[in-house]
């Protein structure tokens, strides 16, 4: 009925598709509960993703992919017109790379095309400049599924083609290329999420970083598989897939929370928020949990993938020559840098947005989010609990997927036991609490803050002078001075925008001017052009025959 004439549409579920469907399901449910259920375009978007995941033939895959792109483009357009053109351009580029690739036989060219196509869609460096512009534009539910789901679908296509369809022809440098692209995404994503002052843009940059982490894991696994080391490949794949699962849970929580903040205060710029925890305690608590996941803190959903990935990189540093050793050591340094930057970004999000004093009246008057949004975020938080506290079980459930991708691997069980850690933490906290209760003075008195000895603020500023507060850009300023000036282009612009997008835009305007110039040529010039072409052909013919 559907599909190519004579072939129809084939759908199939295997372990990998099932895993990514499970990643997609909670976010879709949450976004639907949070208010997107009435939008037809949203359901078309979800349908496209599901088709791409379930596809058993190339046509269905491309059809689902394009439906996903088109529907999300419409949603971005509804939100904000400015990034829509850029988004459409990237979607077309990605399709232009993927469509020939799925029909080519397994070879390096095909893998490069798949990598370019899916990398552009997922936001791998250097094709990531569109993501922080396009993802914040649509409503929060759509942003959540775009960041949490759409990039995963792109990575799913990369995994399927890299490991399964092209599996036999895989070469180590494919994996190395993926690692390099992933490392660049991790660094630039983490740095920008620390430096951006608008909440949704910062969250989108954090998506770039996590996509980079997954790409690093996939790259190590691909390289290890090509070099004949299934154990390392399994370890790296565990890390990458667990990162995909965890990111698909905490990132939609953060985006939905940002949407709720926008509804309550009218803005998502961190410099206009502050003290939201007083007016929105439940949303604040949920955002704190989600930010803990983003920062890869122990007992959070984001720690187990980080644990596995770092161990995979350390194990990979032992393979190969001196260049590989230095390369993987540098990669580990970069990952450490990015982890600490993400921690800072998460702390900044909560610390400046939710703690402290309100910076505007809107922030002071914010009321808690609607019950629907809270229910959606709480649903995702409930799904986070098994990922945080029982990652060993999840890793065990991933065994069939890994068996599909790296045949012959025997994945080792997880060496990180959050339940035991949680027990020790609880015992220590309980002991401290009881000791303080028994031996310490009880009671708390509310006073004006000491603030280095400054007096009370005047009466007409009930929360004190709003300008004597740390701002989001102020918090990020030391890092901007130490790292940002080296990694970003002039003016704090993303290097991908300055060195990739802008030259392409300039080339495009130059080509347009050339085309206009050609269009306005006189008849004499056109005759001359045809005559010159004829002479060139004759010359080529003569030289080919005689020379």
């Amino acid at each position, binding site marked *: 009925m559907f599909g190519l004439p004579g072939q129809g549409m084939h759908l199939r579920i295997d372990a990998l598709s099932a895993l990514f469907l499970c990643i997609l399901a909670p976010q879709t449910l949450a976004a639907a509960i949070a208010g997107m259920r009435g939008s037809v375009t949203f359901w078309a978007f979800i349908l496209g993703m599901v088709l791409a995941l379930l596809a058993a033939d190339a046509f269905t895959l491309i059809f689902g992919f394009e439906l996903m792109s088109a529907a999300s483009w419409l949603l971005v357009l509804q939100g904000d017109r400015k990034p829509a053109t850029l988004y459409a351009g990237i979607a077309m580029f990605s399709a232009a790379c993927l469509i020939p690739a799925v029909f080519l036989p397994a070879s390096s060219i095909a893998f490069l095309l798949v990598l370019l196509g899916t990398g552009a869609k997922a936001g791998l460096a250097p094709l990531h400049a569109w993501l922080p512009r396009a993802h914040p534009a649509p409503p929060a539910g759509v942003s959540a599924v775009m960041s949490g789901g759409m990039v995963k679908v792109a990575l799913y296509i990369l995994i399927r083609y890299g490991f399964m369809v092209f599996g036999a022809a895989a070469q180590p440098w494919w994996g190395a290329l993926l690692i390099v692209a992933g490392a660049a995404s991790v660094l630039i994503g983490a740095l920008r999420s620390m430096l951006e002052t608008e909440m949704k843009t910062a969250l989108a940059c954090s998506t770039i970083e996590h996509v980079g982490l997954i790409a690093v894991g996939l790259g190590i696994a691909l390289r290890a598989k090509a070099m004949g080391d299934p154990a390392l490949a399994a370890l790296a794949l565990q890390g990458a897939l667990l990162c995909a699962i965890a990111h698909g849970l905490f990132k939609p929580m953060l985006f939905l929370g940002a949407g709720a903040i926008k509804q309550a205060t009218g803005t998502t710029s961190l410099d206009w928020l502050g003290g939201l925890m007083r007016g929105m305690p439940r949303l604040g608590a949920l955002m704190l949990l989600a930010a803990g996941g983003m920062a890869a803190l122990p007992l959070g959903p984001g720690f187990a993938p980080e644990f596995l990935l770092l161990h995979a990189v350390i194990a990979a540093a032992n393979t190969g020559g*001196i*260049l590989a050793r*230095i390369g993987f050591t540098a990669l580990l340094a970069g990952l450490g840098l990015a982890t600490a930057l993400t921690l800072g970004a998460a702390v900044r999000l909560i610390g400046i947005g939710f703690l402290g004093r309100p910076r505007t009246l809107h922030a002071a008057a914010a009321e808690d989010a609607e019950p629907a949004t809270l229910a959606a975020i709480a649903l995702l938080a409930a799904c986070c609990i098994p990922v945080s506290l029982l990652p060993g079980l999840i890793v065990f459930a991933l065994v069939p997927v890994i068996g599909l991708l790296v045949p012959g691997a025997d994945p080792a069980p997880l060496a990180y036991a959050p339940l035991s850690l949680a027990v020790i933490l609880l015992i220590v906290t309980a002991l401290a609490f009881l000791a303080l209760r028994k031996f310490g003075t009880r009671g708390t008195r509310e006073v004006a803050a000491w603030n280095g000895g400054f007096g009370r603020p005047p009466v007409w500023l009930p929360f004190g002078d709003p300008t004597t507060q740390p701002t989001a850009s102020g918090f990020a300023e030391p890092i901007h001075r130490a790292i940002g000036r*080296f990694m970003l282009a002039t003016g704090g612009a993303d290097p991908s925008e300055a060195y990739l997008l802008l030259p392409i835009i300039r080339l495009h305007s130059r080509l347009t001017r050339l085309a206009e110039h050609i269009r306005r040529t006189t008849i004499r010039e056109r005759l001359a052009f045809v005559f010159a072409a004829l002479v060139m052909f004759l010359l080529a013919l003569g030289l080919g025959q005689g020379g």
Partner: protein
Amino acid sequence: MTYSYIYQISHLLGGIILLCAFSLLSQRRLSAMIALYQIEAITLAAAALWQGFAQNAGDLYLTALITLVIKAILLPIGLRQIVQRFNLIRAVETAMPIGLSMILGVALIGIAVLVVLPTTLSAVSITREDLAISLSIVLLGFLVMTTRRNALAQVIGFLSTENGLVLAATGMPGMPFVAELSVALLVLLACLVLGVFLLRIREHFDSLDVSGIEEIERRGR
């Protein structure tokens, strides 16, 4: 066990010299650079002493003595006197950011390791690590010379390179003593010449900052 002990201590001493050479890249003050050079020279004397004990070569003891007297005592005194006479106690400007020069330093050490490991496969395996360390010190000394704008800092970089060469020489069994003496005298001569040269530059331009000369050279082209 004692066999490997000998080589481990010589590698440790070479590692200390490498650490000093690497720290030279991150220093901004001349007095700190001279102090690091002094530590390098003392460790080099200790390394020569240890090699003399390990290889049972008496001339290496003499080398150690010469290194100690000339490079560890006389040269730093001379350099400090130059600093004082020309009032050079201010900070040294660098031609590239310190972080970048340190990353280049690590890259150079990686190149040294990459070069040394395959080419000496036929030689005794233990001397390979010594050779890698010595080559790294030489390259790092050159990097210091090319990233500092102050003439005296460039001289210290050259001296650090010299230390690396002497370390390689003492590590090889059978290196003639005459070569060592001539190399040491060459260093002394070079420093005297450079001292006179510096005096002339100072008299002409009233400072030893050669960045001005770079400007003139660039404009003249």
